[in-house]
């Protein structure tokens, strides 16, 4: 057992999978550059020393190298493609949605696309175009799996499961959870370290996890919001309210059995999302719970329907925090 942050855990997970399977390779911008960064957030730092022929540094061409990844995946390789910022996925979307996600179906099952995509999200002082929570645009795309780990154990386990899966899997990572040190450290970073076992393990691509048990209200969140929801649960406990916190962890598919079991137990659900509210992932969870759990009462906590602002005072007001989550929970409990 050792204590690791998300960046280190992902790096180790990638290396283990590359050792296990010679068809696994990394492709992306600013990777494997001697003296370079190891990707925008150091995740692949140094892997070129062990795998000199399987770390493919690309031009700045997201559409192109996601297409290259799909082509490699359908002919016997297992690429791990990463973008510096998830916002850049818009450029690559044609290859992700029209090719990676559809080729199996439209070929009548002839093709598998075993491809992993990694994309950092989250509002972190970079203004509007390096900040979006992109989960909403990829959740619910038929043929695509989407996960969003909040700690190092899940990040490593989900990555390893994604590499071994024969389908395209998008992993959203949060910039405030990498726990990276030195030059890449982020103001406002949250501790997402975990105890990582020495033995091989995976985390299934379709299972949520109950982080804290409670009976009065359910809080569903993922990525950074899972941490803020735990903080909110502490505040609520101080007021004598018992909140159950679920880290949704997988967004396509959702783990409906876990989500609905808690919703039925408490009858009250707060869904927390860092992205803006309208048309967000939370709307899909709310609708799914309403269909499956008649009578359940739901509040959504999300960012307002605006681009991500730059200045810290506005950015902090934009992003949901523990106080807003706790307030929504109190409203639900008081209303019944």
């Amino acid at each position, binding site marked *: 057992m050792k204590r690791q942050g998300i960046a280190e855990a992902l790096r180790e997970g990638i290396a283990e999978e590359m050792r296990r399977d010679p068809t696994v390779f990394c492709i992306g911008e600013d990777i494997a550059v001697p003296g370079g960064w190891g990707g925008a957030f150091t995740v692949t730092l140094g892997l070129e020393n062990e795998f000199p022929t*399987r770390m493919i540094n690309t031009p700045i061409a997201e559409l192109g190298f996601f*297409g290259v990844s*799909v*082509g490699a995946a359908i*002919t016997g*390789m297992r690429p791990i493609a990463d973008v510096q910022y998830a916002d850049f996925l818009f450029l690559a979307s044609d290859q992700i949605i029209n090719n990676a996600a559809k*080729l199996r179906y439209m070929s009548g099952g002839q*093709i598998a696309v075993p491809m992993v995509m990694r994309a950092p999200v989250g509002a972190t002082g970079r203004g509007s175009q390096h900040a979006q929570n992109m989960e909403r645009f990829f959740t619910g795309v038929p043929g695509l799996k989407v996960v969003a780990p909040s700690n190092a154990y899940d990040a490593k386990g989900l990555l390893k499961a994604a590499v071994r899966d*024969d389908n395209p899997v998008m992993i959203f990572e949060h910039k405030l959870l990498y726990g990276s040190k030195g030059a890449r450290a982020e103001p406002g970073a949250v501790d997402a370290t975990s105890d990582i076992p020495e033995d091989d393990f995976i985390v299934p691509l379709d299972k949520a996890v109950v982080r804290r048990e409670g009976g009065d209200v359910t809080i569903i969140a993922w990525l950074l919001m899972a941490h803020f929801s735990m903080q909110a649960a502490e505040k609520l406990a101080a007021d004598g309210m018992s909140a159950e916190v679920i880290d949704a962890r997988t967004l396509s598919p959702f783990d409906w059995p876990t989500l609905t079991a808690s919703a039925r137990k408490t009858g009250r659900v707060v869904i927390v999302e860092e992205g803006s509210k309208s048309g967000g992932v939370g709307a899909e969870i709310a609708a799914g719970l309403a269909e499956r759990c008649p009578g359940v009462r739901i509040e959504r906590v999300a960012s307002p329907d605006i681009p991500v602002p730059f200045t810290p005072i506005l950015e902090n007001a934009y992003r949901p925090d523990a106080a807003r989550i706790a307030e929504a929970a109190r409203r639900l409990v008081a209303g019944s």
Partner: protein
Amino acid sequence: MSDGNKADFLLGLLERMIEIREFEEGVRFLFLEGAMPGTIHQCQGQEATAVGVCAALAEGDFITSTFRGHGHALAKGLTMQEMLDELFGAETGCCRGKGGSMHMGSMAKGMVPGIAIVGGGIPLAAGMALSLKMQGKNDVVACFFGDGAVAEGAFHEGVNMAAIWNLPVIFVCENNLYGASTRVDLVMKNPRISDRAAAYGFAGETVDGNDVLAVYEATRRAAASCRAGEGPVLLELLTYRRTGHSRRDPCHYQPKSERADWAARDPIERFASVLEADGLIDAAGVEAMRTGVIARFEAAVERARVAPQPTLADLETEVFAPEAAA
């Protein structure tokens, strides 16, 4: 190649082109008759590009195609039957009725189902070539696209990556002078597409795309260069689409004189007269070839009309691959 083998090879090229022409004409009739669902993008007049390129490829080589892929599929060895079944939406089609006209393909035969987003197959082909190279294989990928795709960012990004990594891709641009209804000179300042290769640091060549042997020879050279590790090649094949862009396009934007000029350069008639001049076949032989193709086509249509359709149980299958063994 012995003389006998060479004659068989040349007659085979002719027969394959006739097969594509008659397939397309027959399918067009079936669409007008309302027998088939969906839409079609046909390639009458472009038979020499598909046949010339695919004849120069080896077992194990791949092609990628576009929404106008019927000719590529037949040239790569898909059968009229599996394609007609697909067009009729049958469960026995090459993509089990889930692909249709624009997504014809068979991985077993080396053809990725058609990528119907313009330019979308270009980075894909580069990735396939990267994969083959990383696996130590000596296979090449021929990537078909039209003149319209050259304006896409995907062309620039895919071609550039193939160049910097010396990937074994033959970029095959079928320049038929029109992207849908828009003539090439309205959308490019330099309409000589092969010139673009130089900007990426590799060889480009413009070839008479209605001369099947010229296409074959150019592709053979390109494939040899790819297999020698010299990186990609761009072939611009000049050709002409005799039909509309898709099923309901009457093609009024093609000037009559231009259509007549290209009709005089029909790839099938031209190659037939070359073979006739060489004494390999006579007019009656060509006609017999055509009659044979039509008979096979019609028999395949009759089977396709009654081929089993998918059931509702197939609606939600084949979205995800089964779990890989961990």
